[in-house]
């Protein structure tokens, strides 16, 4: 089950493994299989080295040996025909207009479980649980609609030092099987994760540069996020990480209350930008302080020369939660 070679950003050739179906909710919905909330991560958890262990299990001396698996997963023939109802649930939750065009955040929900499957491989060097989602950058190059048959690809690349550990990019791509995309994926997402407590050679020194005093702009919107926000997005996205589901399960991971999914907040901001973003756009986000649930997030969407910038913050404590851009292509 090997296809043509595929290369990462730095030119590393990847061994392509074709999978029969997408793991997680997206694939389950698409194939009409029995509903199951488990994400690929949950299935693969037992017996994996280092999962959920953080720094204690790791010998710092061995850290320099960290290497990513040189493999890409590929799932051809992903049908979206049965997705309309699930898509509309997503669109209502994220305040997207309801229709049959898949927003960039929905394609993330569809494709990311395959990237998760890469992360839970036995030879993936970092633990899935406890990793911090630092940033996400997505390009949607044209509309993807219900009924399109897609190929999804995913791999990990660009393992690099971060002042608090190591970071890695999980790349996922969605290709239209009709071949009408001119040799480019219709959608490409790069999710950057941090594994704390790991080390790479040439790591920058740990001193945090003092953050400039940040002054919130005038808000253009306010989100009142109820206590069930994480459960609702977890149900639609399949990402049922316990830190999002309840105060109790979040406390086990060191959070005072449940926190909102980063991608939920980024996708709400994307929806806030509205139809002016067009059918093709670049959408980025950087995550700062997590949004505790229930909670209120002040948001400002600001027009820029080539698109929109957005920022979300806690109005009472003047703490930034996230910021990003939406740029029509």
């Amino acid at each position, binding site marked *: 089950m090997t296809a043509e070679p595929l290369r990462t950003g730095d030119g590393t050739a990847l061994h392509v493994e074709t999978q029969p179906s997408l793991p997680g909710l997206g694939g389950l919905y698409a194939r009409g299989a029995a509903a199951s909330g488990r994400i690929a991560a949950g299935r693969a958890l037992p017996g994996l080295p280092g999962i959920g262990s953080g720094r204690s299990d790791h010998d710092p001396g061995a850290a320099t040996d960290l290497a990513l698996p040189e493999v890409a997963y590929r799932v051809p023939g992903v049908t979206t025909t049965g997705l309309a109802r699930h898509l509309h649930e997503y669109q*209502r939750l994220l305040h997207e207009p309801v229709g049959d065009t898949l927003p960039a955040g929905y394609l993330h929900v569809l494709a990311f479980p395959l990237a998760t499957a890469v992360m839970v491989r036995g030879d993936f060097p970092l633990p899935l649980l406890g990793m911090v989602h630092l940033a996400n950058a997505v390009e949607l190059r044209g509309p993807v609609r219900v009924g399109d048959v897609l190929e999804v690809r995913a791999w990990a690349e660009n393992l690099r030092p971060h002042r608090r550990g190591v970071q890695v990019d999980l790349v996922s791509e969605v290709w239209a099987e009709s071949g009408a995309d001119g040799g480019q994926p219709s959608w490409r997402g790069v999710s950057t994760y941090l594994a704390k407590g790991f080390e790479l050679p040439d790591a920058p020194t740990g001193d945090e540069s003092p953050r400039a005093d940040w002054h919130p702009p005038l*808000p253009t919107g*306010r989100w009142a996020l109820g206590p069930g926000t994480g459960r609702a997005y977890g149900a639609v996205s399949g990402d049922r990480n316990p830190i999002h589901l309840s105060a109790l399960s979040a406390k086990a991971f060191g959070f005072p209350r449940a926190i909102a999914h980063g991608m939920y907040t980024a996708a709400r901001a994307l929806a806030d930008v509205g139809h002016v973003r067009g059918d093709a756009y670049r959408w980025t986000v950087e995550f700062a302080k997590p949004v505790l649930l229930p909670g209120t997030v002040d948001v400002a969407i600001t027009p820029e020369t080539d698109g929109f910038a957005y920022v979300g913050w806690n109005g009472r404590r003047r703490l930034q939660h996230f910021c990003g851009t939406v740029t029509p292509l």
Partner: protein
Amino acid sequence: MATRQQTPAPAAGARPDVRDAVVVGGNRIPFSRAGKKYADASNQEMFTAALEGLVARFGLQGERLGEVVGGAVLKHSRDFNLVRESVLGSSLSPTTPAFDLQQACATGLEATINVANKIRLGQIDSGVAGGTDTVSDAPIAVSEGLRRALLEAQHAKTWQARAKALATIRPGDLKPMAPATDEPRTGLSMGEHQAITTARWEISREAQDEIALASHQHLAAAWESGFFDDLVTPFRGLTRDDNLRADTSIEKLASLKPVFGRSLETPATMTAGNSTPLTDGASTVLLGSREWAESHDLPVLARFVDAETAAVDFVHGHEGLLMAPAHAVPRLLARNGLSFDDFDFFEIHEAFASTVLTTLAAWEDADYGKNELGLAGAFGTVDRSKVNVNGSSLAAGHPFAATGGRIVATAAKLVAQRAAETGEPARALISVCAAGGLGATAIVESV
């Protein structure tokens, strides 16, 4: 004053092909703070009371009017024919047509525009415009989860499918949903939106409190002078607007804590004193052609000259939520060949004291005139002594859809009185901001 390029129009909105629509009079019930005197009064009861008072005042029992038009902002789905039902409950002829209309806080003025236009076109000879709102008796909805499950169960063909639909109901879905006044697209309440506009225009707390004080003093004086004697019918034992604080003072207003804009970088300035309270009430205005008024031996207060609505792009903060009238008025005045100097009265709905101030400031700002209004410079300066001379919503309260009718009746009576005193024509400009970045404006003129 600079104007936009428009089709050249004859002076003061005279259109050779349409006839005049005139305001005969108005009637409302006293406005009451939410949860007080009208706590259990429904929209229909209040609107019927206001309408019946109007019928009694002008002897319209058994009369078939051309149309009754009105609405409510917070409306229960069972009230789909709210205005028609009110007509059937009144002593007007049951052959009087009616329809519901809704444009948030501009509902009452939009209803007046509608009735006036039909009269001007000769489609009807007479009509009533108005509105009603209750916050106390607001509809409570079920959650989206429960609503969808119930609908799905209702549409299900088998009991299994019905059971499956009902099984999706979660305990959290059973929580009732009270209507919110937040802007659906931004999640910010109207007060928070206006706090942002207030900060942008750097409107001071003192200036806002002065507007609030003037509103109470002016409304109290108008009640004392008997101005409302033929504009209001008592209801449920209430004879005057119960939000009115004749004895309030600048010190009392200054002592109130800010309620909006508290998370902004700039100091919060908007308080419960310089913002309108949630209010219950209903209002009506009787309009007709001159011929109809004459043939029914009815007085004529004013001519409803022209109107203009506007909407602004507020969603990403390009413009303030409540700034649409600032855009509508320059267009309205240009079309009618008028400037601020041609007006004796300005009725600017006080959604918040700062709404009045940001609107006036925008008209005085040269950059705003150029960039937002497409003019050569500032639009103009309003003589502040002509603004809301008999008080406005800060003192009277603001039952959303009922405010337009209150203002139209007040403005019509003001110009009629002034013309009677001076023997000169008098003119009033009406400006009402509304949710959704909407605004409605109109001109009334003595006859």
